[in-house]
C-alpha cells in the first residue's frame, strides 16, 4: 500500500491546517444537571463529556488521606467511540490514562482544603480521533472549575508530535497512527508547570524542546477558550449570541487575510 502523504509541499496537513494550528474547539459548560460540575467538549471530531462530583467522603475508606483530598479519575471510552466496536469497560489503556489524568488534576486542585475527602472525575469519550486524553483533561479542568473546587489554575492540555519529519501540534488520527512521535502534555497555563507528559516514538533533543514550546503556546490558547466558556455561562443569552456573531465575522476576516497572504 502506498503511504499517505501527511504533509504536502506547501506545508499543509491533510485537513488543511498548518503545523501550529489546532482543530476547532467547541466547549459547553454544565450540560449535566445531576453532577456538581460538568463540561462537554468537541475538539475536531473528538467528543468528550466530563463530570465532577464532590468533595465527598472518600470511599473506599482506606484511601482517605487525613491531610488532603484525593482526586479519583475514571477515563472511559464508549464502545461506539472508535471505528471497530470497542469492548466496553476498563482495560489496560484506560486504567493508565485514568491514573495519569487523576494525578495531573490532583496537582492543580488545592487538596489541603478538604481533608479526608474525595473528588471524583469521570471522563467519557463519546467519539475518539486522537488526543482524547488531552481533550478529556481540558474538559475535566473546566468541570472542576464549574463544580466550584478551589484550584491554583485551570489545567489545559494538548498533544503534538512528529509527522513526515516535521514537528506539528494537535495530531489527528491519521497523523497519530502513521507519525513518528506523539507527545501529550498538560500544563498550568499561568506558570507553565507541567502536570502530565508522555511520549511515544522518537524525537531528538532539539525537536523535543521545539515541540514543547509550541505545545505550551497551544495550551495557553486553549486556556483562553476554557476561561471564555466558563464566563459565557454567566452572561445573558443575548450577549453570547452577539459575541458569536462578531466572532464569526472575525474568523471570516482571518480567513480572508490568510488567503490574501497566500
Amino acid at each position, binding site marked *: 500500500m502506498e503511504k499517505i502523504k501527511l504533509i504536502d509541499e506547501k506545508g499543509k496537513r491533510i485537513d488543511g491546517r498548518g503545523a501550529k494550528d489546532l482543530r476547532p474547539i467547541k466547549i459547553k459548560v454544565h450540560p449535566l444537571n445531576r453532577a*456538581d*460540575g460538568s463540561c462537554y467538549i468537541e475538539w475536531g471530531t473528538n467528543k468528550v463529556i466530563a463530570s465532577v462530583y*464532590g*468533595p*465527598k*467522603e472518600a470511599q473506599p475508606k482506606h484511601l482517605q488521606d*487525613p491531610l488532603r483530598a484525593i482526586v479519583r479519575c475514571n477515563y472511559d471510552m464508549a464502545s461506539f467511540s472508535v471505528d471497530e466496536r470497542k469492548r466496553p469497560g476498563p482495560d489496560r489503556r484506560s486504567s493508565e490514562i485514568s491514573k495519569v489524568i487523576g494525578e495531573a488534576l490532583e496537582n492543580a486542585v*488545592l487538596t489541603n482544603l*478538604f*481533608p*479526608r*475527602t474525595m473528588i471524583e472525575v469521570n471522563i467519557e469519550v463519546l467519539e475518539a480521533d486522537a488526543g482524547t486524553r488531552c481533550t478529556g483533561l481540558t474538559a475535566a479542568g473546566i468541570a472542576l*472549575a*464549574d*463544580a*466550584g*473546587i*478551589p*484550584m*491554583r*489554575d*485551570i489545567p489545559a492540555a494538548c498533544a503534538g508530535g512528529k509527522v513526515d519529519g516535521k514537528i506539528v501540534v494537535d495530531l489527528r488520527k491519521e497523523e497519530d497512527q502513521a507519525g513518528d512521535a506523539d507527545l501529550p502534555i498538560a500544563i*498550568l*497555563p*499561568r*506558570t507553565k508547570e507541567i502536570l502530565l507528559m508522555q511520549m511515544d516514538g522518537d524525537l531528538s533533543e532539539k525537536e523535543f524542546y521545539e515541540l514543547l514550546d509550541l505545545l505550551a503556546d497551544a495550551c495557553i490558547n486553549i486556556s483562553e477558550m*476554557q*476561561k471564555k466558556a*466558563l*464566563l459565557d455561562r*454567566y*452572561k*445573558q443569552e443575548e450577549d453570547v449570541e452577539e459575541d458569536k456573531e462578531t466572532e464569526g465575522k472575525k474568523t471570516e476576516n482571518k480567513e480572508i487575510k490568510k488567503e490574501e497572504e497566500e
Partner: protein
Amino acid sequence: MVKIKEIVVPGQLLDEGKIKPGQGAYRDRADGKIYASRLGVPLKRRDFINVIPLTGCYLPKPDELVIGIIVDVAPSYWIVDVNAPYPAVLHVNDVPWKVEFGETSKYLSIADVVLIKISRVSETEQIQVSMRDRNLRKFVGGQVIEIQPTKVPRVIGKKQSMIELVKRYLNVWIFIGKNGRIWLNGEGKSTRLAIKAIRQIEKEAHTEGLTDRIKEWLEMNKSENM
C-alpha cells in the same frame, strides 16, 4: 439590559502587594501575587480580597441552621447528612427528648428531615449538630428542594427581602437551611410556583436588581395561575 457583576476564574490575577488573600483566593509563593482559586465574584473587604464563589459545596460553621436528613441510627446517636463533604453526628444529649439507650429509632429514623444547628466543627472536620434550641424540630409534611449552597444568601436577600417577597405573594411556608436545602409547605399550586421562583433566583443570582425582577415575575405568574 441586566447588569452583571464581574466574574473571575481560577488562576486569574486579583491583586498584588499588601492586601491579604481571603476566601477563594491564594498567594503564590513564587511571585507573591494574589490569584483567584475559585469561579466567583471578587470582593475587597478591609485588607482582604475574597472571591465569593458561584458554585461549590457547603462547609459548615458553628451556629448555622441547616436542614439535615437522618442517614443512620446508632444506639446513642444519629448520623445526619447536612449536604457537606463530611457526615454529622447528632448525639442523644443534643435532642429535646429524653431518649433511653437503644431507643433512638423511636424518635428519629432514616430519611427523616430535621432542622438542626451546627454546634461544633473540629479541626479534623468532625461535625457535631444539635436540636436543643428554639424552633429546632423534625419536619412533618411539606417538601425539601436543594439549591446551590453558595446561592443561599441571594435567595434570602438583604434583611430577608427576597424570601419574604415570595412568602408574601404565594402564602407558602418556607425555611431555608444554610446548606442549600429548602423546606416548603403550602397549597400545591403556590408551592410549585414558589419552587419555580427559587430556581429563577438561583439561576440569576449573579445579576443585579434581582428582587425587582422577581417581584414582576411573581406579579405576572400569580395573576395567570390563580
